[in-house]
């Protein structure tokens, strides 16, 4: 419960899946498919986080709003501002934040520079597993 998100990010590896805001949406979809993930952090060249682009953004803001994925830029439909965790947050704090805002991906930042991205699955597994194990005793 008191694990820090910075530890989870380390455990998950140092992958910092991000995309630039001026890439096209179709390029983002290709990257998500090749990395088998549901969201990419949108970051500028210096790793400064400016938003997040998820399957949810794609499902809601392209075809339903008459846009095309090869003509629309990630920066046009990304979710911004994005809710981030600071590296010193605990896993529990992060999970509560995700539930409160109904989000499935949480970038971890230090001074708004991207350190990594946690999914609801990563965070929930870290919080739930130890407790679930206790309750089965």
């Amino acid at each position, binding site marked *: 419960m008191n694990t820090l998100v910075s530890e989870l990010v380390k455990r998950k590896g140092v992958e910092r899946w991000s995309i630039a805001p001026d890439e096209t949406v179709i390029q983002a979809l290709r990257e998500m498919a090749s990395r088998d993930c549901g969201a990419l952090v949108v970051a500028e060249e210096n790793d400064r986080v400016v938003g997040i682009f998820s399957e949810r953004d794609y499902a809601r803001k392209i075809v339903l709003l008459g846009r095309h994925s090869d003509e629309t830029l990630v920066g046009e439909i990304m979710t911004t501002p994005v809710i981030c965790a600071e590296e010193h947050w605990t896993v529990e704090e992060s999970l509560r934040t995700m*539930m409160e805002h109904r989000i499935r991906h949480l970038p971890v930042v230090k001074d708004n520079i991207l350190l990594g991205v946690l999914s*609801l*699955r990563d965070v929930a597994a870290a919080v739930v597993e130890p407790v679930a194990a206790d309750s089965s005793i």
Partner: protein
Amino acid sequence: MRTVSAILSRKGPQVLAIGPDATVLDAIRKMAEYNVGALVVTAQERLVGIISERDYARKVILRGRSSAHTTVREIMTQEVVTAEPEWDMKRCMRVMTDRRFRHLPVQSQGRLLGLVSMGDVVKAIIDEQTFIIQQLEQYMQVQVH
């Protein structure tokens, strides 16, 4: 520990479903309308699959299809893992994390009862933990004073 049927009763009896012959565009519209990330696919009230934002993001434009001319059947996930109403949250969580699903349809004796999401499961677990902690705190206060 809380069970799947407790979650379903809190969510209400409505099951968000779509037919396999509907277009993907119809499915995306329905997901937006109800603000959900997946729909169960039913034919004659039987579960035949599940369609999610993931299926849409991976199997339409990237495979040269269009959402208006593709049916739900063509991109839905057919091999659906289902939960039973008496499953506890730990079991749901384990299945979802191991199999990498965010949604579990719930069935009992072949009848579709609803759909639980990872968010539903996590929320139920957190609520229960909060309740246990409050109980413990009250207990501690009683003991101290």
